[in-house]
């Protein structure tokens, strides 16, 4: 039993899923940080009063060393941007990712007011930092290849941990929902949020004609969240086609795993479309590659490439069809 448990955490796989998470999540974080700079809010967010709104409680390490000032805030922000760029590119990854973890903790200490995504980043980034997420699609991997080193496999445990983390986020959020998420509140939660002037992207009340759909969306959201541990079962059944008996065949036939993933992606796309929740939906979607085995990811890319090349080959024919179909009408 113990040996099986140790073997499980010792598994290796191709690095593509983790690499994709690195690129997507790093990209989301970078966009968020660049927005702070673009809007000129760096001082407001991370400088101490009276210039900014930074916390004057326990100061961050950098603040203790360099003093609380607007310059320190800008320096921290610039470091965060630089580390995010290196993180996305997978350049000097180990150093850059550890530095990014440090800088994000420092920024969080300067400005403790944040949303769920800040907390998620603080949990996820250290796991990615110790993973082999730079073993593919990265500057580091490119240099390795130039030196003649073969591509390498990475330990799978960081992906497994992030997999469990995302499930836990859903479970924890799901079981703490208030009564408006259930039948007692008439599944009104999403309708309520879309009526809140601070959260609604569209004019509050403008989606009232779609209210039954909003109730359905609330129901689907809560079912999706509470049922999220089942993704472990769906994934196991898919990876072991010989197991699970009739139930397993049912799950595979109706692709329950992909239904769940599709529901999650739709949920976050809906949030991004209808609510002003910042980077939360994008950050969550950026974590979805952890649900996909690298082999499946390669397979999907392979299929996409074949599809694109097929379309590309068809293009000249499609162009030549037009005059042929036009001719009879001209005649």
């Amino acid at each position: 039993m113990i040996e099986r448990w140790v073997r499980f955490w010792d598994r290796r796989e191709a690095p593509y899923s983790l690499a994709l998470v690195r690129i997507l999540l790093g990209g989301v974080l970078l966009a968020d940080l660049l927005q702070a700079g673009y809007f000129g809010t760096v001082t407001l967010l991370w400088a101490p009063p009276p210039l900014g709104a930074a916390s004057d409680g326990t100061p961050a390490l950098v603040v203790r060393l360099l003093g609380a000032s607007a310059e320190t805030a800008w320096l921290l922000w610039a470091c965060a941007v630089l580390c995010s760029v290196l993180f996305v590119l997978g350049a000097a990854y180990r150093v850059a990712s550890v530095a990014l973890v440090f800088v994000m903790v420092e920024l969080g200490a300067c400005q403790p007011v944040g949303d769920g995504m800040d907390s998620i980043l603080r949990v996820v980034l250290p796991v990615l930092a110790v993973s082999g997420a730079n073993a593919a699609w990265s500057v580091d991997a490119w240099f390795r290849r130039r030196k003649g080193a073969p591509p390498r496999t990475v330990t799978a445990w960081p992906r497994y941990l992030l997999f469990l983390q995302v499930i836990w986020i859903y479970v924890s959020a799901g079981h703490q929902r208030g009564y408006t998420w259930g039948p007692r509140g008439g599944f009104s939660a999403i309708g309520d949020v879309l009526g809140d002037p601070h959260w609604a992207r569209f004019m509050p009340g403008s989606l009232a004609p779609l209210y039954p759909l909003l109730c359905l969306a609330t129901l689907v959201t809560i079912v999706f969240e509470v049922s999220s541990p089942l993704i472990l079962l769906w994934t196991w059944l898919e990876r072991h086609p010989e197991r699970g008996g009739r139930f397993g065949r049912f799950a595979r036939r109706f692709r329950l795993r992909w239904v769940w993933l599709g529901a999650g992606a739709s949920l976050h796309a809906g949030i991004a479309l209808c609510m002003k929740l910042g980077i939360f939906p994008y950050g969550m979607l950026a974590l979805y590659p952890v649900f996909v085995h690298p082999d499946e990811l390669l397979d999907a890319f392979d299929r996409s490439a074949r599809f694109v090349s097929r379309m590309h080959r068809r293009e000249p024919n499609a162009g030549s069809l037009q005059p042929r179909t036009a001719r009879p009408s001209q005649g």
Partner: protein
Amino acid sequence: MPPRAATVKTFVYYERQVKGARARRDSFAPVLSGWRYVRASLITLVLGLAFVAGWPARMAKLVRDWPPSLAALALRLPDLQQKLLAPFAPVAGALGIYSEDWRLFTGTGGTRYRMWIEGRRANGSFKLLFRAADPAHAHLSGVLEYRRVLNLWNPHRDWISDGYPAFTRWVARKIFDEDERVRAVRVRMEEVAIQPRGAGFVPSGRFVYDELVERDQLGR
């Protein structure tokens, strides 16, 4: 899941890599074997701690309708949670991880807020510059709705962030720099009642978190 024909090469390649890694591992077996156990133990510890850290903080609210004996048992959990996590708190604190308790939109509806930002001219009249969900008054809406800024001013059910006064000074400074005629800036939250059936909200005319920043206060 078996790989498709076109990717078989890649799979075979990675299969070899995995086997190669295993072979290499075998040659370092004594060292690696020890490390494998240490790593699995650390991961198990992290999973256990994450599970404990995930026990809901608002337990009293969650167990309101539970049978009394079960609720009493559940209410002991927060204390136990503190005790179990205490030895590892410095490590979690160094990483800025304070909880695995994810509360996202736990309560909706009821009384909410709508931010107003107004500028006062020399004649004493206030001009509405920004009001949430009001396209006719959307001055600075881009920056105000940027999530990190929104977190500073968006009130929770019965509290607002400590950064709110600093935010009001910052936004006032911005407005003073843009328009020299503005003598003071007022930021406040109107209470609104969320309507049933997704029908939006009804303003109440009652204001809270009222902050007035005079130009002289900022030395502008």
